[in-house]
């Protein structure tokens, strides 16, 4: 059957069909027959989001540089397209050469967040690949997954053959080579042989080689290797120095979420905000040089024609030469109609100067993320900013011409009271008042108020998600207090938060819940219009499990977590100390000022030892330090 011919019938009937046709500038179409190893990179959400994902762009570029490998792309079809594929029997296909997923040697899923889990099942199913890893044999592709959600991989262990823990730039090549070496062998044990080989690669976790035991109370007893030669704990991979940035981004024909080129100016963050998963798992901090970034921006503009470039990092203000970088970029591109965005700026007047230098006549809003509205709370979460500094900064933003300020908060921090939440409304009102002094009724304050979800590998991994009753009470307080011209509130529905919470800290038993929920119709869980909490509740009930057990339970200090066998090189004891400090209202300063021995250096001391001092923000390691605690 020709997929091409069928698509002529299908595509005119679906919304935004250009999402399913490929052909974008800088997409790489190789000769299928002539390329021995075939990878499809799968993003389990729609095209518009997947095209904005930097991780997959990096792997696509890296793999396609190899003449013996082709890497293609596939995204989750919107339900209208899914229905058409099912009705016509057309399998889910790659955009480059329109091959079904089942034709590839390797399927690589990116799992950046938990709400995409059911989409993985949709894609495997439409792509004619058995859903369960245990039901695949030598005829089927190897299914791997990586990305931030896989630092707690076990909820997806039933569906994924091997997880990549940590940064993928080096390990993806090792995985491809390992499978390639065994590809010529063909026997019934092939799949197991390949997976055994993958499990020996540092940073690769193959769940089938680990046994999971539970205690009578439902908590985890232990996770232990079931075969020889696989590590008891899988340590994340890092690249010692960031490789040259991708510049040949695929240029979409249709509008996508982040329609721009991106350069990662630094990876990791030294701030240590206690709620922040990314800040804990992406250590150590590595910067790119100003020269490398400038050269990359030049090349991106030339090779993509994008009118916007984003300088990406978890905390732009902390990039050590941010002033120089912004100056140089504005000198070079000031009159070339290139807009440069610099997200994640700290709340201080220096940030305003940076944004002003980059601004090309376009007056968009200014965004800050105080996360909490009282000094007490901001101490607890270790994102300390004095109230006065916040208001002073807001006043200056307005007086320098911006009319809109966006403020991001979270509700549901550990031990938060209604008074802390009322302070969010007071602060928003105070900021608006400053705006009105300058711009009158044109001043606008947008308040984004998500609900805090405790994440694995963070100091708050022991804590409970706020109760639904409490979340609703806090949200209704905000809705009432912020109902006023000039203020706009957005929030997350408590059921959405619950889903994120039980998947974030779930264990291997959630595999059957995910499968059942998907069978009952759960899909595109990140999309309000498709979200179906009923399917999830029923799936939990059918398997005798309770979402509240995963989402809303304070854990004992010594509880074994489902992700304890995944080592992000930040010690559990360090996280516990940080949790205790939080309860006592103690903060830790930026770890560039003082090393708190989180665990990165002992875990990667041999890597660090061979690097120049300035390569990482962590202190250099000398031989005498190597013996430090582990």
């Amino acid at each position, binding site marked *: 059957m020709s997929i091409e011919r069928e698509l002529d019938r299908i595509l005119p009937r679906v919304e935004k069909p*250009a999402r399913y*046709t490929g*052909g974008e500038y800088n997409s790489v*179409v190789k000769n299928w027959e002539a390329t021995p190893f075939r990878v499809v990179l799968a993003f389990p959400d729609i095209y518009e989001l997947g095209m904005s994902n930097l991780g997959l762009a990096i792997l696509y570029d890296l793999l396609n540089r190899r003449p013996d490998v082709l890497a293609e792309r596939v995204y989750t079809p919107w339900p209208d397209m899914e229905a058409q594929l099912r009705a016509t029997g057309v399998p889910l296909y790659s955009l480059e050469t329109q091959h079904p997923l089942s034709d590839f040697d390797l399927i690589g899923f990116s799992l950046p967040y938990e709400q995409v889990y059911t989409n993985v099942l949709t894609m495997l199913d439409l792509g004619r690949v058995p859903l369960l890893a245990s039901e695949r044999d030598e005829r089927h592709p190897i299914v791997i997954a990586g990305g931030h959600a896989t630092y707690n991989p076990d909820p997806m262990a039933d569906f994924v053959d091997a997880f990549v823990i940590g940064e993928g730039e080096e390990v993806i090549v090792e995985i491809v080579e390992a499978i390639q070496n065994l590809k010529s062998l063909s026997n019934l044990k092939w799949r197991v042989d390949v997976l055994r080989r993958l499990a020996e690669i540092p940073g690769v976790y193959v769940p089938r080689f680990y046994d999971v035991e539970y205690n009578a109370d439902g908590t985890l007893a232990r996770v232990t290797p079931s075969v020889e030669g696989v590590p008891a704990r899988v340590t994340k991979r890092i690249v010692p120095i960031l490789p040259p940035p991708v510049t040949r981004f695929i240029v979409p024909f*249709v509008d996508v979420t982040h329609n721009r080129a991106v350069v990662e100016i630094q990876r990791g963050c030294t701030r240590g905000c206690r709620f922040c998963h990314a800040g804990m798992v992406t250590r150590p901090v590595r910067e790119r040089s100003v020269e490398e970034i400038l050269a990359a921006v030049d090349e991106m503009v030339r090779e993509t*024609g994008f*009118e916007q470039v984003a300088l990406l990092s978890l905390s732009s203000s902390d990039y050590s030469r941010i002033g120089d970088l912004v100056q140089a970029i504005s000198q070079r591109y000031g009159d070339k109609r290139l807009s440069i965005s610099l997200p994640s700026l700290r709340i201080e007047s220096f940030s305003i100067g940076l944004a002003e230098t980059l601004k090309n006549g376009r007056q968009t809003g200014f965004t800050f993320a105080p996360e909490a509205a009282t000094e007490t709370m901001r101490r607890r979460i270790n994102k300390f900013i004095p109230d006065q500094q916040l208001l002073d900064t807001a006043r200056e933003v307005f007086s320098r011409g911006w009319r809109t300020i966006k403020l991001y908060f979270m509700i549901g921090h550990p031990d938060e009271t209604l008074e802390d939440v009322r302070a969010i409304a007071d602060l928003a009102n105070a900021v608006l008042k400053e705006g009105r002094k300058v711009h009158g009724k044109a001043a606008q304050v947008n308040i984004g108020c998500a609900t805090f979800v405790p994440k694995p590998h963070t100091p708050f991994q022991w804590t409970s998600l706020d109760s639904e009753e409490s979340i609703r009470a806090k949200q209704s307080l905000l809705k009432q207090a912020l109902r006023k011209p000039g203020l706009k509130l957005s929030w997350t529905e408590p059921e959405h938060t619950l889903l994120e919470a039980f998947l974030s800290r779930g264990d291997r038993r959630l595999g059957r819940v995910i499968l059942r929920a998907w069978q009952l119709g759960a899909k595109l869980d990140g999309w309000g219009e498709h979200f179906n909490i009923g399917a999830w509740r029923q799936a939990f009930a059918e398997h005798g499990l309770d979402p509240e057990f995963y989402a809303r339970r304070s854990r004992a200090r010594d509880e074994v977590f489902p992700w304890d066998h995944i080592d992000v090189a930040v010690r559990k004891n360090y996280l516990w100390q940080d949790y205790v400090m939080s309860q006592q209202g103690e903060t830790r300063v930026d770890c560039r000022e003082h090393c708190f021995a989180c665990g990165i250096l002992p875990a990667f001391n041999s890597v660090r030892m061979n690097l120049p001092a300035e390569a990482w923000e962590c202190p250099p390691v000398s031989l005498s330090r190597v013996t430090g605690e582990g």
Partner: protein
Amino acid sequence: MNRYRLTFTRDRTVRFVGHLDLAKTWERILRRADLPVAFSQGFHPLPKITFASALPVGCTSDCELLDVVLSEPLDPSDVMARLVPALPAGIAVTSVAQVPLNAPALQAELRWAEYVVTVETGGAPEQIEQTVQAFLAAPTLPRERRGKSYDLRPLVLSLVVEAARDSSARIVMRLLADASAGTGRPDEVLAALGWGDAPVQIHRRKLGFEAFEV
């Protein structure tokens, strides 16, 4: 300021790219080609690019036209050479010519567009011919589109069955494409013929302007 007229084709790969997305695609092509595109004045400067006519979504074409103003005088062959490596699969430039800066806007000069339609009608050749003749004989063809009623008949300048086989036909339709008098859509004609849901390929092969054809 120097005005250049580009003729380009659109093949299957980009048949679902809508007009606004195509405009954005062209801005990026011109930036990759490093051509000195002129921008409008004002608070929101926009690149000076204008298209002759939006191609209906789903169609291919080999007669698309756009005018772009460059701030430097360049030889048309130089413009062409810079464009070629900057084009995505699915778009090819077939000619570049310099036109007077004050030449009338393409849109104002456009009169008609001609489409070749290959449609799986499911009927015998005689039936196909009959259907087309009945269409042409109708004095009016009232239709509704996006909640507005209009008469399709005067928008159809000609409708010819070029080839008909069992169950499929090649039909050439010349439709009005006039900023003031109205624009006919090939999918509307097909719907009026009763083939609105039939598998179809639509290709625009000619644009007719006040003073010239492409």
